């Protein structure tokens, strides 16, 4: 569907109620990112259904996330070294910008605890490598003030620890894997940080550690497992 062909109310209702097939949902999502008219219709419908004051695709749109992922990856591609670029290109083409895992971290000022958002649409996750996250039950060393640990749901092979005091994010990914997975820490505006995780010596795990992260909202995404490399 091109820009000029708009969606009807029924389709928009189905889109909001998440009743559409994945392909159709993506198609509408892409259209919404470009079509102001349809977006207004979505916002109006959303207000009717959920009685919210305001709705934007940025906060609620599933398909809008697809556009955002593409933007993050494109941005990462432009701001990384040549050896990594091919991998990001493959990520974009082979996996259609889907990710192996995603969380959002909001670092506020020093007095306020960091927030972690773990609930994202399944649509964003690469099939076979999809990883949703949940907050880990605070046990042992995790229960210390200022530290939040989240783990990958179902298969606890990825663990992320956020430390508000140190403004750090520590990521551990269980191996063995055929390659060290890439991680991208993207801000809303600035350049994303792209890192290739390193093997944690003496273990089967891969990891990355970000320190002194400034205040702001960050999206942390993980390269899908078994992404094709050339």
């Amino acid at each position: 569907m091109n820009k000029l062909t708009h969606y009807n109310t029924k389709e928009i209702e189905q889109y909001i109620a998440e009743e559409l097939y994945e392909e159709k949902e993506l198609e509408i999502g892409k259209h919404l990112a470009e079509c102001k008219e349809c977006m207004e219709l979505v916002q109006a419908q959303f207000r009717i259904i959920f009685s919210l004051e305001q709705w934007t695709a940025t906060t609620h749109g599933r398909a809008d996330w697809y556009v955002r992922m593409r933007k993050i990856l494109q941005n990462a591609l432009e701001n990384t070294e040549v050896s990594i670029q091919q991998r990001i290109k493959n990520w974009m083409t082979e996996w259609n910008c889907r990710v192996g895992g995603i969380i959002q971290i909001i670092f506020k000022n020093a007095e306020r605890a960091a927030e972690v958002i773990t609930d994202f649409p399944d649509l964003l996750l690469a099939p076979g490598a999809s990883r949703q996250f949940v907050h880990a039950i605070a046990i042992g060393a995790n229960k210390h003030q200022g530290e939040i640990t989240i783990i990958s749901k179902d298969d606890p092979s990825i663990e992320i620890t956020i430390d508000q005091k140190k403004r750090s994010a520590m990521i551990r990914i269980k191996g063995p894997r055929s390659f060290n997975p890439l991680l991208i820490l993207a801000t809303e505006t600035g350049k994303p940080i792209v890192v290739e995780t390193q093997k944690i010596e003496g273990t089967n795990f891969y990891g990355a550690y970000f320190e002194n992260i400034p205040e702001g909202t960050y999206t942390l995404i993980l390269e899908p497992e078994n992404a094709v490399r050339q």
Partner: protein
Amino acid sequence: MSTAKLILLGSKKVIDKSQVRTWFLDENHLYKAGRKNAESVDIDLSFDNAISRHHAEIWFENGSWLIKDTSAFGTRINGLEIPKDTAYRLHYYHALVLGNRTTLLFVPSDSPGIAWNNFFIEVTGSKFFSYALYYSKLPVIEKVKIINCRDSMSEPLTLCLRSLNYFRSIKEIEALPAYHSTEFTPEITVNTFSLEKQINRTKSTLEILINNNLIHMQDITMLAWNECSLVENPYNQTALATFVLPMHPSAAMAVKDSFPEKTGNHQIANAKKCMKELYKYFNETWKIRYLPPVAESRIQTLRLPEQVLLDWEHKEGQGTCLDLVLLFAACLEHAKFQPLLFMVRVSSHLYHAMIACWKDNHVRFKVLHKDIEPLLDEIIILDPITFTQQSPDSEKKNNKLSFDQSCAEAMQCLKQGKFLFALDIAAARKCDIVPLPYRGHALLSEFIKEVDAAAKQLAEETGNITGYKVYMPVHMLLALLMKEDGITRLLFKESGFDIEECISIIKSGIETIKHGNIVKELMPSQHYEELFYAALKYAQSENSLFVLEEHMLLALLKCESRSIDKVLQAIKGKRELLLEKLASLIPSLALRGREHLSTFCYEITSGLQ
């Protein structure tokens, strides 16, 4: 010092097997490759007359290895002809074709790789395999690299890596384009039964087979379950964390006794206070004898907490520095602190272990620390031998120092010795290096679990006919006899019995047991329960982490069960003869008096001195 080597991969010319096939390259030397003539060559390739007398030069300059072709026949690197008389940078794993017949591979000098039919196969991993490594799912073979050094597509291969009785891995390798390589971590299938039986250290071999042809063998040592290798590779080092047992009753009891005022889940105020109180407890309440490590201390036999804190009544114990460190670490972890295990080399063959603790609890990233400087301000460290007594024959009777003196001693030791690594136990736990499932008594091996389940199944089946569902030692004996590849079958076979006939006699015997009495619920007889208790005792006296088949068999042949008597009568077998045969089959079992574990430990330690 040699940092690189050249390996002769293949030559279309048949060469003498005694011909040098590997040349180690020193950074301070210029190497000339060619055919022997008046002028000496370092890399003698005289077997190939398509090579110039002075074919190429290889040397090290400004951090790089370089090659220069000086021949009439040319030199190719990974298939590309290099310009004559021009220095060209060499990278590891470059394949050099000199002339058009001889292929050499340029690799790091410590590469364990081997050449086979124009392939280069490099298998890297640990020289030691142990239950701890297996339990932590750490790789015994870390990486396999295969390079096709031919100028054409390779055939697909089947690679098999195996160590007989212990593990095996089979991988289908797809065809590789010319000069391409593949790298992977092989999936290993481990024979748990064999590893559980590993009471003593044994030498084995890692066999590399391609398309079912054995192409290479390399040594691998199977450590006993309670042994560790300290310096061999990072995986063995992190596997040490499996021997820190925070839930062990002796560690838990030591923490409880150190902090009598604390009950339940009250957290002890801080790490320093915890270390100080524990230190005071071991220093003042216990008489712990320091045992110096044995000569070859890079592999150590470890004592678990109950083997260190031997006598709770008289508060007497013993251990090497590493045993004490593992105990102290277990206590700290039990008290919810984050211990670190320090390893220092004090002389060429001697290592010293010390215990430290992070001042603050945090989730940390690194498991192995190789740089000491960033740690020093964040930890409290002490030397555990400063709360011990020397052995009676030592001139110095007492090592005992105060807590502060012990910390100072540890810092002194760090300055004098060579710091090897610090192992962060809490970080290791985050990477799945969990404590061994040992709680002061042996565990049922997988084999015994299977046999136990089979015995119950037999009781269930016969119970459905007879109405009597009690499982007894005789069910266990039957299950053992029915288990393929077991020692029981071997024992009966070696003793002249027909196994199938024995099984048939026992089966029909079981069907007549207690006929008429109704017990509908599946339950064990008293003797059956005693059997496990006895087997457990035998396992412990053998210093085995697991109750193995031989322990169960010994318990069966020694138990006072009438059903076993009847069975032996029916098959015309005698306990004494079977016990004798068992002793000959398993010399380590030796059927000697079964001492209490602590006595046994004392014997071991006496033997070490």
